[in-house]
């Protein structure tokens, strides 16, 4: 989050310079991903429905990324993208807490100055409201509506203030994207722009493309605030000029930034929070109006400094009598201190506290030294270490958070370990995300509760056992919200210590192939199913981690590492069974089914979706026979439901299953005409089911990561076998399973409307298909709609094959199997008519 309202203020006052992009020729630019994305998204206000179809990717993101990278390439600019890492204490409190924070009318400002992290309850509230208003309009039309879907009104926006949900999924997606294109990236341990500041100081980059927060850094003379790729121009901020123009010292500026609210201190503090700005109710009204509002607040802060010499810190100190103000003071202090002591990942791989101020001082000192001595040759930039001594207080954990081992930060930095898991360790809370569909349904809540035992306990146990004992004893809770406002959440205490430790139960499972093949779930399953004796092939007599084991006997290739840990993960989930005493590795019924996949001719891309479906069925929180009607208004018309009750239930089953199907964004993004802004029907009930699948997939991913990190941290893998971070990225990160899910509800909706139309239109396929292609015309996949239907039908058939097997193994209710079979029959009939 940038310094609130400052950006528009600077633009209005003409304090932002601009140059053609080719000036940056040969430069290396450090890009703050949060800032970069917020600019893409804010410029294109067309993502109203991404949240409604359950997609974490904003429309056209791919397209913009590709174009921007192309321009970088043309100008020989090297971009280095830096992601945000863990949240500082201030940020976490603001993001996760449901407190209203005494912010008053300033909340409106956030609508204007959108950025990535938000109080998440604002987002969920917003989504819920949008859904309710949509459902209201559906109900109103229910009598007249037969087969024409109710499309949400154009003004309805499911994304809170055009906020893109900067989820882990998006981060992982982008990381894969960057790896594919050989673009350098890094996940900062904490604040991305402060990591960039470090990179700038150490001359890894020539210039920063970041948020206004960079103005708080004393070392930052110039940085880029925006790129106008169309005009081939970039906008930059010259700090000296701005401070001169505003007639402020650096300290005064930081003081003002701390009350305005910025990345490190997200609240707008008194006295500025009491300003009753004229609200701008119409989001579509002219920008000028909103800018005047937002600028007033900066003006006011500056005027207070000009006219009365206000120091806002002193102001906070002296207003402790009022309620909430102690909190305000605390927020100020923490924010200010985080600016001065921010952990950054240093070139040597260590995470250390960094203060740009001290670096600046050290440099001055250096200069003076150099002046007196002769001008010695300069060090090579990469070797340059910014080790400077400055006053580091003894309670950094109070405003940053607790320290984790450098190795964990390293895994985070390359994208191997999700920030959320690390956050759980430091904060002691695993905050469940609020689903796309808004309110968590009963079955969803049940799923979360079950997952605490199935996934979370294991994750925490695996992650805490290699690190400091403090974390093994620390209580860690999972927080489950019961409503969108986050009030009265359920807390589940997680078990971090089990005896014997989880890792000990699985560490003799080893896959050693020493092949160079790329890891996929399919290749993994194939390897297992080809084995005649799992115990013999995939267990080891000895553990691999001690130093006594020579590096040749350890895991040496990426495939082995990933396969070993996926096998272990599946063991933990009960798909395989490893008996420690008997030292035997056997597949369970589920496992046998999985091993049968290659014989069932399952398509490679469907492996992970079907694995998720298996876990879903195994957890048994939402049987296919259960109706969702109580939680969401059906998308099908009353006419359909009344005239074709059986077919309606078939349609329901099909739409649920199809949320697992990846329609794939590639089709739309490859289209050079790019305007694939989705606007069409939406469906909450499919979304609810999709949330379940997403949740399971996410947990699978997190569990796998935990197993992987436990293995890596213990030293089972020869960590020097991969040369440089690029090797880690391309061989491991790009191959992580459960990491690539990108589904939405579009295919299931297409089937719904297709079948509904088919029913009402005298069972003719062509009309129904034509109808669907008009309804979903904004998707730009209409030309190949037949293909899409056939492809998804193939997926459904594979599901049917799986459920048949499941049914035969008594793993699935025969009723469920039956209805899936009948639904599919119906679908096939409709499509082949």
């Amino acid at each position, binding site marked *: 989050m940038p310094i609130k309202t400052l950006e528009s203020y600077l633009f*209005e006052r003409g304090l932002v310079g601009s140059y*053609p992009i080719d*000036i*940056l020729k*040969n*430069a*290396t630019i450090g890009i703050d991903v949060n800032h970069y994305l917020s600019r893409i998204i804010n410029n294109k206000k067309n993502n109203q429905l991404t949240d409604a179809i359950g997609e974490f990717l904003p429309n056209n993101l791919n397209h913009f990324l590709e174009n921007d990278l192309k321009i970088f390439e043309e100008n020989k600019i090297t971009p280095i993208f830096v992601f945000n890492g863990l949240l500082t204490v201030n940020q976490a409190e603001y993001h996760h807490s449901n407190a209203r924070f005494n912010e008053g009318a300033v909340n409106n400002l956030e609508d204007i100055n959108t950025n990535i992290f938000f109080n998440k309850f604002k987002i969920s509230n917003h989504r819920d409201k949008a859904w309710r208003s949509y459902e209201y309009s559906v109900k109103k039309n229910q009598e007249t509506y037969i087969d024409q879907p109710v499309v949400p009104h154009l003004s309805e926006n499911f994304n809170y203030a055009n906020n893109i949900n900067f989820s882990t999924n998006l981060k992982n997606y982008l990381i894969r994207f960057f790896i594919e294109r050989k673009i350098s990236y890094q996940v900062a341990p904490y604040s991305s722009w402060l990591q960039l500041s470090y*990179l700038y100081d150490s001359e*890894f980059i020539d*210039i920063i493309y970041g948020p206004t927060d960079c103005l708080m850094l004393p070392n930052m003379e110039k940085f880029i605030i925006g790129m106008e790729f169309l005009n081939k121009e970039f906008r930059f901020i010259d700090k000296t000029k701005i401070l001169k123009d505003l*007639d402020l010292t650096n300290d*005064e500026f930081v003081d003002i930034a701390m009350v305005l609210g910025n990345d490190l201190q997200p609240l707008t503090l008194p006295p500025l929070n009491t300003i009753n*700005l004229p609200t701008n109710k119409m989001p579509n009204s002219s920008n000028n109006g909103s800018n005047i509002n937002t600028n007033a607040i900066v*003006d*006011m802060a500056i*005027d*207070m*400094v*000009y*006219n*009365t010499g206000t*120091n806002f*810190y*002193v102001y906070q100190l*002296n207003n402790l009598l009022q309620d909430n103000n102690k909190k305000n003071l605390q927020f100020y202090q923490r924010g*200010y*201190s985080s600016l*001065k*002591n921010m952990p950054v990942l240093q*070139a*040597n791989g*260590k995470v250390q*506290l960094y203060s740009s101020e001290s670096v600046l001082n050290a440099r001055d000192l250096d200069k003076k030294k150099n002046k007196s001595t002769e001008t010695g040759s300069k060090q090579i930039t*990469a070797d340059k270490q910014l080790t400077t001594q*400055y006053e*580091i*207080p*003894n*309670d*950094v*954990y*109070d405003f*940053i958070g*607790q*320290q984790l*081992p*450098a*190795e964990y930060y*390293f895994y985070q930095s390359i994208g191997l370990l999700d920030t959320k898991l690390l956050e759980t360790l430091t904060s002691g809370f695993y905050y469940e995300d609020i689903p796309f569909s808004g309110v968590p349904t009963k079955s969803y809540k049940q799923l979360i509760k079950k997952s605490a035992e199935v996934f979370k306990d294991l994750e925490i146990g695996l992650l805490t056992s*290699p*690190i*400091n004992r*403090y974390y093994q004893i620390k209580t860690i809770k999972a927080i489950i919200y019961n409503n969108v406002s986050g009030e009265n959440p359920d807390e589940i205490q997680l078990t971090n210590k089990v005896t014997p430790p989880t890792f000990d139960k699985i560490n003799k499972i080893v896959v050693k192939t020493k092949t160079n093949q790329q890891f996929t779930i399919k290749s993994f399953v194939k390897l297992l199913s080809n084995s005649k004796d799992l115990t013999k092939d995939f267990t080891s007599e000895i553990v691999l981690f001690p*130093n006594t084991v020579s590096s040749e006997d350890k895991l040496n290739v990426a495939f082995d590492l990933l396969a070993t840990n996926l096998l272990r993960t599946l063991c933990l989930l009960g798909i395989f069974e490893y008996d420690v005493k008997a030292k035997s590795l056997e597949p369970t019924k589920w496992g046998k089914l999985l091993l049968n996949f290659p014989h069932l001719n399952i398509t490679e891309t469907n492996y992970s979706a079907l694995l998720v479906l298996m876990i879903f069925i195994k957890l048994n929180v939402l049987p296919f026979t259960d109706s969702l009607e109580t939680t969401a208004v059906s998308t099908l018309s009353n006419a359909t439901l009344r005239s074709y009750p059986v077919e309606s239930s078939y349609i329901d089953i099909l739409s649920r299953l199809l949320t697992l199907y990846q329609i794939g964004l590639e089709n739309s993004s490859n289209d050079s005409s790019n305007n694939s802004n989705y606007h069409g029907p939406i469906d909450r009930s499919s979304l609810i089911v999709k949330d379940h699948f997403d949740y399971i997939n996410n947990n699978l991913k997190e569990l796998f990561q935990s197993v992987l990190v436990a293995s890596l*941290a213990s*030293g089972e893998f020869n*960590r*020097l076998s991969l040369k*440089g*971070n690029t090797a880690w990225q391309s061989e491991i990160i790009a191959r992580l399973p459960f990491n690539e899910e990108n589904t939405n509800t579009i295919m299931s909706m297409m089937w719904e409307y297709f079948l509904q139309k088919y029913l009402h239109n005298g069972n003719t396929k062509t009309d129904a298909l034509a109808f669907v292609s008009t309804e979903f015309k904004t998707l730009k996949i209409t030309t190949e709609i037949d293909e899409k239907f056939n492809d998804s039908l193939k997926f459904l058939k594979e599901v049917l094959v799986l459920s048949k097997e499941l049914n035969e193994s008594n793993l699935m209710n025969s009723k469920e199997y039956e209805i899936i079979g009948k639904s599919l029959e119906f679908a096939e009939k409709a499509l082949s008519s």
Partner: protein
Amino acid sequence: MKGGNFSNKKQSGGSSYHNSNRSHATSQAMFAESPETLASFTDRQDYLFVNSIGSEVTATLFSGTKFSGILSAYNPESKEGIEIVLKFPKLVDVGFSDIDTKDSETKLGETLLFHGKDVAELELNNISFSLDEKYEQANKKREIISQQPIKQQNTTSHTEQSSKFKTDVDISKSAPKIKERELQKWAPEADDSSALNQGLDDGSSNWDQFAVNEKKFGVTSSYDEHFYTTKIDKSHPEYRKRLQEAEKLAKEIESQGSSNIHVAEDRGLIIDDSGMDEEDKYSGVDRRGDELLAALKSNTKPIENKPSKYVPPTLRHQPHHIDPAIISSVTEQSTVGAPASTMKAGPTLNTKNIEGKSDSTKISYSNVVKNGIQKTIYSVGTSTKENFNSKETQIEDLKKFSQKFKVPFKVPEDMKEVVKKSEEPKDSNSTKGSSKASSSGKGTDGKRPSISSRRRHATIFFGSQGLPHSNNRKKEIFNNNFNMFESAKASYDKNIEKAESEMGKEEKIMQPFIIEKPYFTAPTWESTIEKSHKALFPDERVLVQKAQMRLQQRQMRSYDPNMGNHQMQMAMGGMIGYPMSTAGINPLMNGGMSMYVPMQQPMMYPGMVPQMVGVMGSSGKEGAKGMSPQQQYQSLGYGGPAPVHLGNPYMYQGGMTFNQGMAGHSQPQNSHYKPNSHHNSNFNRHNNNNNIYYYNNNNYKNNNNSHYNNHYRNNNANGHPTKNQGNGSESNKNSNTQEPTSKNVNE
């Protein structure tokens, strides 16, 4: 005439030379000359005497008696000899006369008259010739010439002619050498910096010419503004209607856009004037479109980036650098190679500077040149580690200037491409080559400016040293770092190597390679002091003190008229900072500066400050309605003294009291104050509505450089854009013009 050594000792006044030991034998020389020539001699003599009035002279009478005294009068019309009057005469030498020395001293009195016939010799000491710059210039030039080969010839011809008739030129040629002054950088003195940049209409006092005239000379003015403008009849029944109509018209006119940026600015329109300098905005001829026209005319061959600015003829054959520093440096270099050039100072300075000998008393002119050269050196890329920290400010100035410079119109897209294409082959050369070529100034290739300008921009943007190179391996370096395992390995290898070299290769080193185990990391961060982060905050009082100090500084500065007149500052800065030609110091510059000083000085009234303080503080209270932080400071009693509102004179709340404070300058309120009271009412309204702390919010804004800004900020700060639109522009009008009509409207 004898002697005539011009010593260039610099006096505090700055621009006058003193001619010491210059004596004149004043005899009625018996020249066999024509009357005209004689007359001209007389003229010169007259000039000499007029200039020597006030200086000490020694007169020798025919009696041999010598008197010294101050020459107070001289009779140019005397027919015989030189008639003079001496003040405070003193007897120096009795000579042959029989005057009693002691006696005479008492008798001499205050003035002494000499008849022309009595004066035998007159010795004039310390005559002050107020030489103007031109004269000095001429001398300098001649001096330079005299050191050139031509000198020889000149001097010989001079000696040949010396016995003959001398023309003016001859005489002046034979005049003694004039040494060049050692120039010193002008720096404002701490206390008078403000006066120099003062503009004409931003003085802090109310200068009333009529009042002063009446007081000083007893002249009562019959001035009536209605001689010059239409009288507005307020009693007219349709006055209101007319007023509204007038306002409407005014708004209409003002709301019209204008392509002229100056007009647009006057009308309070928001324009993007980045990249325009003062000339473009206010005085330059609008040349937008010239390029396009030219391109049309020769549409087969598009015109290259022509400089859009007027280029002095002397510079037309230079490569078209825009940066003045480069211009000067290039001009310097070209003079080196051109012997016909009469510049001498340039080359010497040049070589000296390139060698990097730093001279503490280096004149500012040479500094600029030096920087220019250094800059080109840097942009070439052979970055020698020369220390030029002390010049950083100047470089910064130069950078700013060139940042501002931008071709003030949009080049059409297709043009850009054409230009780009023609650039590309050049670009493929090493950057070193291309920029070197452009700075060496050889050739007049029209394509070059665009390249050098891009490079220059890049230099400006990244700083001279941070310029990214084409062999940028930063990505590689980046990818190979940030990996704790590899750095552990690297340091291990290093240790082994070290150990091996110490112990000898025979012994095997038994040092296991260990990657630090994660459990060694404590959950707390390493600290250097045993203190909480809360304890690291500065003391509350220190902070308040600091803030108050800054407040006072700021308000003192708000007196500084150059805040109020940005343009003036710019113009002056431009002249001081960037001599555009190599012709030495622009004579206008000195003149210009000294012209401003006396005019501005009367407008500074630092003595008034204390008088204002109390009054304004209290007025603040009234306005703030208990919401201002100031109020809180006071009520909480920690803030020390109440914040001092030294404010600027425009501050509306204090407007009236401020006038009272200016006792002795009793003037009617001038129209500056009107808008303030106007705002005041506005402001109060806001206070009531929103309870916002807003008082004095104009303080800063009125200081704020441009009227446009003023306008804009007022609107914004009030937060009611539509409501206040009219008010804002009105006040804008008022503060800019003293037009009677608007004055009336306001009332």
